[in-house]
């Protein structure tokens, strides 16, 4: 009982940390994607302005 207890305790802690880590990684990936998209759209706007002139 005791050793099973310890196993599950570690599983529990690991799962909790995993959820946090996966969430943080997903945030970081989203950050990268958003920055790229922002740069792309900004460039698109600049080119439109230049093309108009």
């Amino acid at each position, binding site marked *: 009982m005791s050793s099973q*207890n310890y196993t*599950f305790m570690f599983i*529990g802690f690991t799962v909790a940390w995993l959820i*946090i880590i996966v969430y943080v990684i997903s945030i970081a990936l989203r950050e990268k994607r*958003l920055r790229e*998209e922002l740069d792309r*759209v900004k460039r698109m*706007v600049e080119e439109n302005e230049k093309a*108009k002139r």
Partner: protein
Amino acid sequence: MRQKIILSLSVIAGLILSWDLYRIFLLVPDEANQGAIFRIIYFHVPAAITSFTGFYVAMFTAIGYLVTKNLRLDSIAASINEVSLAFASITLVTGSIWGHVIWGIWWTWDPRLTSYFVCLLIYFGYFMLRRAIDDPTARARLSAVLSIFACIDIVLVWKSIEWFRTQHPGPVLEIRGGGGMAPGMEAPLWWNFLALLMLSTALILIRTRQQDMKLEIDALRRHAHAF
């Protein structure tokens, strides 16, 4: 400036969590009846309190949006709800694991787990609603109303499930062993809560900035396609 706040919050949170892990594993003795698994309370309860606090703070932020019409507040509210949802998931999963050790079943319809599950469903709906609306103003408006309804409903959900379960006692999981905790054992719990609060604030700040970036991208797109 903002980067520095985010970084320092994360670092301090990390330090507190590490220190607490050390304390939890090495200094706190095993609980008499439950053995080692009891330690999971040090994550389960702070995550629960953090997520609940988040949902209610988000509701007030959403009300702030309805009053001021500042879309920034909507970004903040959505970010808080998202981070709180993550912590609510942690609460459910750790509670489920605890239940499995104590009773050998992965899930039990006890009041707290059930109420949390309903809470989770309501906020899944919240994010489904947000994804389904393209117009930022409409999205902010409707999310705010849903947030208000959700937070008021959660109180009723909690109470009604509690009363239901006292009448139909199933395998009732008394997760909050906090009632009988010796003072020495209780401290890591509150430190963990502080750490999780700091961590969630850091995450909320990052997510809010990302929401603002998204708004900026949409605005630029509309500007580009208008000509």
